[in-house]
């Protein structure tokens, strides 16, 4: 860590328990590497949970299916331990980057906090762990940015992304259901606020919260390619050159499925799909090695070169 970064870190002193999730360790490493670097530039140290486990992947809606919430709650126990051991800033919260992990753990947490019997049963099952007290807050990285303020995000910009026309894409997992939403579920603005702070031209399209097709991508590529075509097509028509998101599954469906889209529609023009943190890291002027565009399906390099945004 350079001296400058150390200095920024002592200024805010934010050390926050951070849950990566499996996708950020496999197919979305570019999301994690860019986010950790971007957060550091803002004086936030994302401290990875020790011995974390999968979030549970999907929030189970069945009333009697408690076992599928165990995974989430076990992670929240890790956060309790980190706070007690003084490894983090003591705010009893956990931040996620992946929208899906956020949604699953946020809702599991809400459920057990509202239901004393659930929490007791889960604690009984996990008798080798300390009891979960129900006090941890699950937050998404975008909420954290809002908390520290977009002014601060703006001040961290070294090279603004002026001229780059980006459409924010929210997907469902950070907006629905309402009680898990990080923003107005019908008219979200938070991604746009971040993009504006970075200096991009924000392109708002009515398709910015239309479902990407989610896990249908596993067995019905065509259905998902159809949705991607609509979402990307509307963004293009509205003047966007790229998409920004925070969900690895949305990113996969909008980015990788462009292969199927292009096969079906020969006139389709590919569009880069960024994690918002890649654009942050770019604007904050951190080492561009963290951008890891090798994991993006549609290569964003030509677009960024066009706007003279790359070091080399």
């Amino acid at each position, binding site marked *: 860590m350079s001296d400058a970064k150390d200095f920024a870190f002592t200024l805010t002193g934010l050390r926050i328990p951070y849950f990566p999730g499996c996708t950020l*360790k*496999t197919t979305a490493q570019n999301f994690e590497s860019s986010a950790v670097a971007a957060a550091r530039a803002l004086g936030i140290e994302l401290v990875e949970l020790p011995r974390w486990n999968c979030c549970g992947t999907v929030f189970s809606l069945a009333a009697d299916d408690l*076992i599928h919430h165990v995974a989430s709650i076990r992670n929240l126990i890790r956060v309790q331990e980190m706070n007690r051991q003084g490894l983090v800033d003591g705010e009893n919260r956990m931040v996620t980057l992946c929208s899906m992990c956020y949604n699953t753990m946020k809702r599991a947490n809400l459920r057990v906090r509202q239901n004393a019997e659930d929490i007791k049963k889960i604690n009984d099952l996990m008798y*080798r762990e300390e009891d979960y007290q129900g006090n941890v807050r699950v937050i998404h990285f975008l909420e954290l940015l809002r908390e520290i303020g977009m002014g601060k995000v703006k001040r961290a910009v070294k090279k603004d992304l002026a001229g780059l026309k980006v459409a924010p894409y929210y997907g469902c997992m950070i907006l629905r259901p309402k009680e898990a939403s990080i923003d107005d579920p019908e008219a979200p603005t938070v991604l746009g606020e971040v993009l504006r702070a970075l200096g991009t031209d924000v392109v708002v399209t009515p398709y910015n919260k239309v479902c990407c097709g989610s896990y249908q991508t596993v067995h019905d590529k065509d259905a998902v390619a159809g949705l991607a075509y609509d979402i990307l097509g509307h963004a293009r028509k509205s003047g966007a050159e790229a998409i920004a998101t925070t969900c690895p599954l949305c990113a996969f469906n909008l980015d990788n499925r462009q292969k199927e889209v292009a096969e079906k529609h020969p006139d389709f023009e590919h569009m880069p799909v960024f994690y918002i943190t890649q654009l942050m890291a770019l604007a904050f002027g951190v080492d561009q090695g963290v951008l890891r565009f090798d994991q993006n399906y549609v290569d964003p390099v030509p677009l960024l070169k066009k706007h003279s945004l790359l070091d080399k």
Partner: protein
Amino acid sequence: MEEIKNPVMDIIAEANRSATSGIDAKDIKDWITISIMGRAYKVPADLTILAAMEYAGYKFVRGVGCRQGFCGACATVFRKKGEYKLQTGMACGTRAEDGMHLAQIPFTPAEKASYDLTKEPYSASVLIKYYPEVARCVSCNTCTKACPQDLEVMDYVQAALRGDFELLATDSFDCIQCGLCALRCPSEIVQYHVAQLGRRLYGYYGLGVPEHLKKRVEEIEKGRYAKALDTVIAFSNDELRKQYVGRDIEPEQ
């Protein structure tokens, strides 16, 4: 040198003799009652579960091996008197207690994938391709509770899911493949097969060929051991046995 009259098979037979063989029942002071598959038996106290079952008349052909807690063949499940918890362990290393309910698990049925390591990428997707159940883990930790080796089984399954091969390999290294984790898993994961594939991938791609191995292979290829090997091949059976028994071995710990 003393005469050699203990060929390997005799040694094994000797080790396999029950601790109580040759001892008269009237000379045994302390007795316990255990229940084996629902039937009560009176057996001498302070035996392992394995020895106690043998005393009761069970003869193991499968489901037993080293009798030292190494081979993983003798998986056992039991409940102690008055306890609700179903416990697991190795029969050769767990003491039989009065009032125990016992059953042996001689084998865990499980499909083992066949693969060519050299044709697979070094990524979590390989583990999920051959053992897709891994993705069903609900993090209940039942596997960890079942493990007689005290491994953090759930942690290594989670490491598998996210492609952390180093953690998977090191956390599962002491696995004896008894199968108890897989039997207890509500998600029907076969943890020990996943771990074995993970260790193989880690060895092949993650660690690479170690320097000392390269050096030794070179020495062999240059014929450094050829003469010694020829000498051994030329030994008669008796001479070979004599050399074997008289060899330098690590002292027992």
